[in-house]
């Protein structure tokens, strides 16, 4: 019997699955589907090429192998798609492979009654970060001097972004460059800015957390490290093992240690990047002015709202004419203030509002910078459990006392004080 907290090496027993590191994730998803535990799997599949990650709703277990393999250019967020197009999983049971940001988004939408987590199995994938497809292509041409179409595999390992490609003579080659070096340059290469700040590398809020960190010895490259994070995850793993869909063994003790080291190195890098990026944003009035200046690029297209996993209101305050004058472009700064006020306590730093902003406003940076301050003030950590957000309920007297203790009655002063 597997229980929460258990850790194993796991691999597929099927010869049809050619996944990364033993194909355990694909096999588990396939088992969840074929056993009837779920009605469908919302999987990430390769689209037009290596740089195109596409969501597919798979209902036929035989189709599962096509989702095998990781795509580091898969910067998409699946949770909002489940809310918008799969009825929030109210009427169907689904299994979804998730990065840290996806898992956090599922929790925040579940808190807001937009997704029924009881009907969802989350298979967490350790994630060192993702690279936007067009940035990856430009970076590969520029820094690796390789035609992006010649690349047949990419991975992030040991702090490097590594590509495998076919050279002009037809031979297979590989090349790696340190991610830190790529990200230091002025070109904006490397992982998305929000990934650089991310500190959810092993998504333990999922039912299982899977990855290749810590797989050493004879199983290196042939198995996935699986950490059991919930009873639901334990049940899936147990059933898949009993049915013979996956095989497991105990992890190497040294592997456990290595996995811990990889994770803590990643977290340290996240801290360093936060300090750097938030530092560049300035403090106090300077920060506010910078936010106002960059926000004046806004065309009020609402792509940030459409793609935000926290936004779910049917009647959005930014569309109320007494708050934001309609038809004005750029819109009143109130548009952004409303977003900050409504989202900042729960921002999970998924980066969608920035990556998908047609005017390149660093929305995620602004929002995340405020979230970390609000977390310091109110202790709320979004995306990790079902705790209600700061704005969900407030004991008025307690909140007044807390505000009074800051020495000012101006919340904005507290956030932006110099």
């Amino acid at each position, binding site marked *: 019997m597997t229980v929460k907290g258990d850790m194993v090496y796991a691999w597929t027993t099927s010869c049809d699955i050619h996944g990364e590191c033993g194909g355990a994730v694909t096999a588990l998803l396939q088992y969840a589907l074929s056993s009837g535990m779920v009605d469908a799997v919302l999987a990430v599949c390769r689209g037009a090429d290596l740089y*195109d990650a596409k969501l597919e*709703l798979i209902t036929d277990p035989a189709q599962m192998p096509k989702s095998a393999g990781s795509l580091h250019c898969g910067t*998409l967020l699946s949770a909002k798609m489940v809310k918008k197009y799969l009825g929030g999983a109210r009427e169907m049971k689904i299994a979804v492979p998730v990065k840290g940001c996806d898992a956090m988004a599922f929790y925040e939408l579940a808190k807001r009654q937009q997704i029924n987590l009881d009907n969802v199995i989350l298979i967490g994938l350790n994630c060192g970060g993702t690279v936007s497809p*067009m940035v990856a292509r430009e970076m590969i041409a520029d820094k690796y001097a390789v035609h992006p179409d010649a690349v047949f595999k990419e991975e992030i390992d040991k702090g490097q972004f590594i590509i495998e490609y076919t050279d002009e003579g037809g031979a297979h080659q590989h090349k790696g460059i340190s991610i830190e070096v790529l990200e230091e340059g002025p070109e904006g290469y490397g992982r998305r800015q929000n990934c650089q700040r991310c500190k959810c590398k092993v998504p333990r809020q999922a039912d299982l957390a899977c990855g290749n960190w810590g797989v050493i010895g004879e199983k290196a490259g042939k198995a996935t490290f699986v950490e059991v994070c919930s009873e639901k995850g334990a049940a899936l793993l147990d059933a898949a093992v009993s049915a013979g869909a996956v095989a497991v063994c105990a992890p190497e003790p040294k592997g456990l240690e290595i996995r811990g080291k990889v994770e803590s190195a990643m977290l340290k890098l996240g801290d360093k990047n936060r300090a750097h990026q938030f530092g560049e944003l300035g403090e106090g009035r300077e920060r506010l002015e910078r936010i106002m200046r960059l926000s004046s690029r806004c*065309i009020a297209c609402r792509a940030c709202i459409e793609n935000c996993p926290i936004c779910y209101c049917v009647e959005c305050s930014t569309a109320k004419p007494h708050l934001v004058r309609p038809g004005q472009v750029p819109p009143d700064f109130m548009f952004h203030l409303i977003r900050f006020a409504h989202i900042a306590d729960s921002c999970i730093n998924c980066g969608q509002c920035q990556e998908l902003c*047609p005017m390149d406003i660093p929305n995620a940076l602004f929002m995340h910078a405020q979230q970390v301050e609000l977390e310091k003030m109110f202790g709320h950590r979004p995306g990790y459990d079902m705790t209600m957000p700061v704005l969900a309920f407030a004991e008025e007297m307690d909140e007044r006392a807390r505000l009074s203790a800051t020495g000012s009655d101006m919340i904005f002063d507290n956030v932006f004080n110099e």
Partner: protein
Amino acid sequence: MEMEYVTTTCPYCGTGCGLNLIVVDGKAVGVAPYHRSPVGSGKLCTRGLHAAKALSEWRLEMPLVKGEPVTWDAAIAEAKKLAAYPGDEIAVAISSRLTNEAMFLAVGYARNVLGAANIGVVSGGCGASAVKIADLAKADVVLMIGDVMKSLPVTGNKLYRVQANGGRLLYLGPESYTAVQADTAVIVDEYTEIPAEFSEAVAAAANSVVLYLAGDAAAAALAAALPAKTAVLYETNNGRGAAALGLGRFAFGEKTKALFVITETPEREEDIYADLMPYLEKLEMVVAIGSNATYLSDSATVVLPSAALNEYPGTVTSWEGRVQKVRAASAAPEGVKCPCEIICLLSDGTYAWEDKAAIFADLAAAVPVYAGIVYEEIDRPDGAFIGED
């Protein structure tokens, strides 16, 4: 429940952003970002975000003759009466939102079957760009004439990189969104000359670009005199394609007695065909093909309902000359036909319609800028580029 992503090109402006239509049980219900789009990297503006519903409202679903529903046979027979007019009495207005293939067949039909000489695009533009969208960020001085960033937002997006790279954005035109974004703006309601400081800045720059809207003749005239590369921005998804087929701005002729018109007006866009209404009284016959109802279809002699842009496959050409696929995402309502099929019926089969690759091959053979491009190659995410005019 079946859910599928269909990668296609935005039906609105001439930037050519790629997007994924989310198709649930055969119907386009939403839009998901297509991060792999070489043009927009998944970014979309207001219009692109609503692309799933762009073409589903006010659909025409059955052929009409003088406002009465009739069979396709009856409607086609009635529409064919157009050919009885001499060529110089027929005017043809083609939508610059159709696919290259549909437009090519329509032009062929207009020229060869109707013998019409007056063929154009309502609100059309002209001019070819000397730069690609990816080159914009490398410019050190960019002169924007008119509200270009708001009209083509994701093209405008690339201009922020100019500033980030240390370049300058200059603006000439009325108060606008673009004016707010520029480093230096000269505000004028009508532009008749380039301010001296702008001419000097452009001349002194190693890599300067001037951007203007394809329909803006005043801006084109000013840009022509500058020693800068031009980026001519088309406001419709296939305005560049229409220009490549030699279609200029539509105008009625002195002798016009009959009109053959193909419309395609997505939600959120102005009904540009309303401008034709005052002239209709002078006409004897109007044959209108379109996917949705417009003022024009309300008063046309014959209305032939067509499939909308996201219901049949084909290609469109963006302002930079990038040829990309549009893919069929939803099934067309029963009783409507692909515009290519309608042309085939009107021409008694002269123009075969089903094989879009074959139509494109004919187009590539007939129009020099498309020479050498193969339909299947356009399937790649990066599409294919047309050659120089």
